[in-house]
């Protein structure tokens, strides 16, 4: 019980500290901006540890963070193999294929107004559907290995990417288009010089949404069948064996991979669309 009490005290103390920091004159400094969420996150971890130990929560319900860390440390080769199988082979290859093909289709759709007007509502509609449900079908078609996971990812990222790119290519003002006409610019010139650069914020929005979808698709598709390696496979089998520390270890890896993937795309975006008001800060 003392541990739980300790957790409570720690929680109150940390919260008090955060309130003081947030309302102090320093609240706009970089250190405090990073520090406050960091304190909050660390507090949750410590409170979690203390409460689980204090109440003796069984392992099969919630393992303490320390045990999850220990599990990660001892299972690095397995986690790495799962990461390569699911992220590099499944998610990443599907992401590239899906985004590139959606981009090409969007350029085509943009060239022909009829196609654009037809594809945009249909694409928007499909983007809202539970596409993850195609996973069992695609696993049946492409087999248990990473190819079927990549296929699921392709289907999942295709429509959000398509819709965003098409919308972005429409994003020029009448004045900008008139300017191109006064230069007597060809279709390709105005695409390359005006519409594509103007579409970049939208295209990157699609790319960022797709990073998360890609990882979800690759993991969930493994629930429908996989070789004996992969993050989704490990999660579903470890759940079956009630080895929850392993499940949490995979989730930590998935969270890190997801954030890093998103972060890389966001960093590239910052470089490409440095001119956009949202990036100029």
């Amino acid at each position, binding site marked *: 019980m003392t541990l739980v009490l300790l957790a409570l005290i720690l929680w109150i103390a940390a919260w008090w500290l955060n309130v003081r920091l947030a309302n102090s004159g320093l609240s706009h400094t970089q250190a405090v901006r990073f520090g406050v969420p960091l304190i909050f996150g660390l507090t949750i971890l410590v409170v979690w540890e203390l409460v689980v130990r204090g109440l003796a929560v069984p392992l099969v319900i919630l393992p303490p963070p320390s045990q999850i860390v220990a599990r990660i440390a001892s299972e690095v080769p397995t986690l790495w193999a799962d990461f390569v199988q699911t992220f590099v082979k499944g998610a990443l290859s599907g992401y590239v294929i899906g985004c590139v093909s959606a981009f090409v289709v969007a350029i085509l759709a943009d060239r022909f107004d009829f196609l654009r007007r037809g594809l945009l509502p249909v694409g928007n509609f499909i983007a809202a559907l539970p596409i993850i449900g195609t996973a069992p079908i695609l696993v049946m078609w492409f087999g248990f290995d990473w190819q079927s996971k990549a296929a699921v990812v392709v289907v999942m990222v295709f429509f959000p990417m398509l819709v965003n790119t098409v919308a972005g290519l429409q994003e020029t003002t009448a004045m900008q288009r008139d300017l191109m006409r006064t230069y007597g610019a060809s279709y390709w010139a105005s695409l390359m010089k005006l519409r594509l650069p103007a579409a970049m914020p939208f295209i990157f929005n699609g790319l960022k949404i797709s990073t998360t979808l890609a990882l979800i698709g690759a993991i*969930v598709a493994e629930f429908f069948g996989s070789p004996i390696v992969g993050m989704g496979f490990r999660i579903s089998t470890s759940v079956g064996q009630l080895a929850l520390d392993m499940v949490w270890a995979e989730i930590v890896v998935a969270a890190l991979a997801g954030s890093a993937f998103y972060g890389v795309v966001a960093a590239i975006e910052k470089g490409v669309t440095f001119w956009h008001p949202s990036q100029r800060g």
Partner: protein
Amino acid sequence: MKSFLPVLTVVAAIFALWYLAVIPMNMHAALTTAERGGAVISPEGAAARRDLSGISLAANNSEHIASTFNQDRPRLPAPHQVARELWDTTVEKKITSKRSLVFHGWITLSATLLGFAIGTGLGIVLAIGIVHNRAMDMSVMPWAIASQTIPILAIAPMIIVVLNSVGVQGLLPKAIISAYLSFFPVVVGMVKGLRSPDHMQLDLLKTYNASNAQGFWKLRLPASMPYLFASLKIGIAASLVGAIVGELPTGAIRGLGARMLTGSYYGQTIQIWSALLAAAIVAAGLVAIVTLIQRVTLRRMGLS
């Protein structure tokens, strides 16, 4: 209405491609069945055909193309087969029957709606807290944003199993996953919305000496509505995905996700496709309802 014809064309093209794809996808199986029935196929024997493409087989044995559309367990069922299955399992079956898609659809839908309600409610409450409390804003908001880059869905199986082991079963575990998935989009959208009034509008209220509560009810809340509805549309779709995925890990026997899973175990492709289409219809319906409420609300507020 200007886009009616283009949309119709695109949809028609999708169905045409679907029908076309059925031929090569099912050709091998169709020929094997036909050969067993005594027909002469070139080349002879399933083994000899294994490495040939469906298209070339279709060209050589064009008289068997028709049968690709009526396979029992096709690799790719034709649209009319899926439609017939949908019809059989919705209209023809009693809705209490285990084989009725309406029954399975309702199982999934009820979990979706419950989860969506919980997630949205909590999301709005947290958003209000974040907007009115600096410490909460600085502590929680970065994590709420970061969580959107994480494949949260991966923890679905664990939630189901853990809750199962403490005796919580049925609707609630799935609803929790649904709630979890709709929660973060609502928080992020609602915070954005509550912050959307500009300085001039806020200053105007200051000149009236309005209280914080008045500022919330008269300005921030109405201003947040367009953002809230945009998030709700994302949230409800995510909730449905959560409910479906929540049905996968425990080998559930009820719900649309369970239909997909059993279909994939037993190779019942038509069953998978009809469950998938049913899920699509449910999703479209839910998004349509939210859109409708959005239109009515925003029009009443004079925002659209």
